[in-house]
């Protein structure tokens, strides 16, 4: 099993009070895969059911954000590879 990777950057180094801060996280894991299983049932006469799909994530990843000044960071978006968080300076 591979270890995850993470990289974080802010849209600035210095903020005025009240300004929006954006944190971009690039992350991944070589084992992390998203797969879809589709099942179709066929009887002896050859009748087929409608296909049913389920998705599964192998080695799912969770992201946590901690700020030692106590600011709350909320998730704006997450593509599975890039997540963006927002806080107020």
């Amino acid at each position, binding site marked *: 099993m591979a270890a*995850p*990777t*993470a990289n974080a950057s802010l849209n600035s180094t210095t903020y*005025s009070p009240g300004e929006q801060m954006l*944190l971009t996280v690039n992350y991944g894991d070589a*084992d992390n895969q998203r797969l879809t299983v589709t099942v179709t049932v066929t009887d002896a006469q050859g009748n087929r059911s409608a296909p049913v799909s389920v998705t599964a994530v192998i080695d799912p990843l969770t*992201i*946590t954000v901690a*700020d030692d000044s106590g600011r709350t960071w909320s998730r704006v978006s997450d593509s599975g590879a890039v997540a963006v968080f927002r806080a107020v300076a």
Partner: protein
Amino acid sequence: MPRVTVTVRDSASRTASATVAYTVLPPVLGGYYLSGGADPTADMAGGNFRSLTQYRSFADAYIFPGYQRPWLVTLGRAGVRLNMVLELKHYGAPDTGPQTFSVDGVTYTVPAPAMTIQQRPGTVWPKAYGYGQVLAGQCDGLFARALSQYRTMGFGVNIQLASELDTDHEFGTTEAGKAYTWAESDARAVQAVTYIVNWFRAKGLPQDSTFSVGLGGFDRDCFRRTHPEALMTRLNYLQWNVYATSPSHTALERFRRTKDWAVADLGPVALSRPVLIAEWGVRVIEIPDQAAWIATVPPAIARLNAERGPLIARTNYFNSGWGTLSPKATGLAALRAAYARPPYG
């Protein structure tokens, strides 16, 4: 410096972390000045006004808080940070002669002011105590009087020496019959300001006492000449004034002009000092919509403070002269709205 740490964890609890540090600047203090040094309490009430400029002449017997200005003590005790501009300039009271007075039991005699400044052709040149008089110790009584009154205030202030040395020296100065060029006047002022700051700093001062030297900031050479590193080690702020007097003037360019000169010309001690804008204003003749211009100030200050160089810490709107708010209610509302926003809020 706050730090934010991101941790990515997989199903087997293997983790990867990344940490980024950032800085949140202290809020900029929005401030004010009301024409004539009048009581600004009503104008400031309910707004995020946290800074105030006042002007006093060392020649006057009432410097702190000033003649019939008990409201200044009230505002200061309420946490409004005061920028007291103390000038060697004589404000033109009928008596410009020598003064004899007592301070805490000591009698001082100070000679008549011997210098003229602001020597614009075709105008009456104001009198001021001369830089030579200061260096000769002849004005020590004025400083003692100011200090004695300052100590009764109960809080520290910023003492800005001179309002605008560039305006004072632009057409040269004359002291005791000898004429000095603009550059010579700047050099003499640096010596005199150094003397005055040293004089005050050698005494017991209220906590949080700070010092700066006053400049309009419209002349790059003068700004450089009046900010040598040796003097800046004794001062706590950089200072300049900002006016919009043309329809083409933007807040960003007006606030940044002197900053850019400072960053290019001044040494590391000077650039470590925050900036106190003692006056800023929008002249209504050229810019009828003062409110719209005022609304552009917060983002301009935020942007300048995000760039390298000294941080702008206080900006005091000059509701007088070039900055007169007209109509006043509209201008004040714009000022309140601006000071409620980052980087002020």
